[in-house]
């Protein structure tokens, strides 16, 4: 499956960051464009420090970055780590789908073998 390109630790950080619904909502908001902490806090009944804490987790996971040049220091989505995690799991699913299709074919073959074995037995019994 070639899972070698990304370190497990980095993936753990990405997945841990994605496991929280508030953080996923923040990412969803950032997917439509960069935003300041105040803007990000608005839809939530949460204090700004609480939102900042979530932002730090996302930042550590490499999922978002902040622009240092602008005064309101808007956060921006970094799509690459998420895409990498996605690719990883997409292969996991493909792994199973491919396997099961082959298993279908194998089971057909086993069924035919069994049927033939039964026929032979019956013929032998008749003789």
């Amino acid at each position, binding site marked *: *499956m*070639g*899972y*070698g390109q990304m370190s*497990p630790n980095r*993936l*753990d950080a990405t*997945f*841990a960051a*994605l*496991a*929280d*619904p*508030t953080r*996923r*909502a923040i*990412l*969803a908001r950032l*997917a*439509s464009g960069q935003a300041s902490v105040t803007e990000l806090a608005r*839809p*939530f*009944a*949460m204090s700004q420090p609480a939102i900042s804490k979530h932002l730090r987790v996302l930042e550590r996971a490499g999922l978002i970055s902040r622009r240092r040049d602008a005064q309101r220091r808007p956060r921006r*989505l970094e*799509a690459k780590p*998420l*895409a990498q*995690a*996605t*690719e*990883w*799991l*997409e*292969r*996991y*699913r*493909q*792994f*199973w*789908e*491919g*396997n*099961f*299709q*082959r*298993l*279908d*074919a*194998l*089971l*057909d073959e*086993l*069924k035919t073998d*069994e049927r033939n074995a039964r026929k032979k037995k019956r013929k032998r019994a008749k003789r």
Partner: protein
Amino acid sequence: MQNTGTLKLEARGDREIVMTRVFDAPRKLVWDALTKPGLLKRWFFGPPGWSLIVCEVALHVGAAYRYVWRGPDGTEMGMGGVCREFVPPERAVCTEKFDNPWYPGDALVTTTLVEQAGKTTLTLSVLYQSREAREAVLKTPMEHGVAMGYDRLAELLASPPAQAAGKEAGAP
């Protein structure tokens, strides 16, 4: 449930992912295909070019199993565990840990086979060690198409956790 050939993935409880697939064959044959190394090697190897190079199966409670796959570029991927329940041809429970895991902790995998009218439903339940590990695996998109645009990303992130997000944010 007799929808042969469709792989279904769903979340159950806090820590579980359940995979369901119907096969057009009696249970005994599916069980053989899952437990005999000679048969396993013919289907359980992932994408084309990969092969199952180590296939040690566990056939009683307390036995260890181990699988190692090798890819076309020589990359190897291994996993294994210990069998906790073994009831042919209907049920097996085994621990599962990958050599290079992409989720924290190890998992408990329950395989169940139910036969109905000559068809067999395979249910593969993976119970993760924590809610976070399960969420991590589940909330990440599994549809086809690896390249992801921002639009699709937004859709993805917005839809499934809406209820949970509302709860946490104190919204109605």
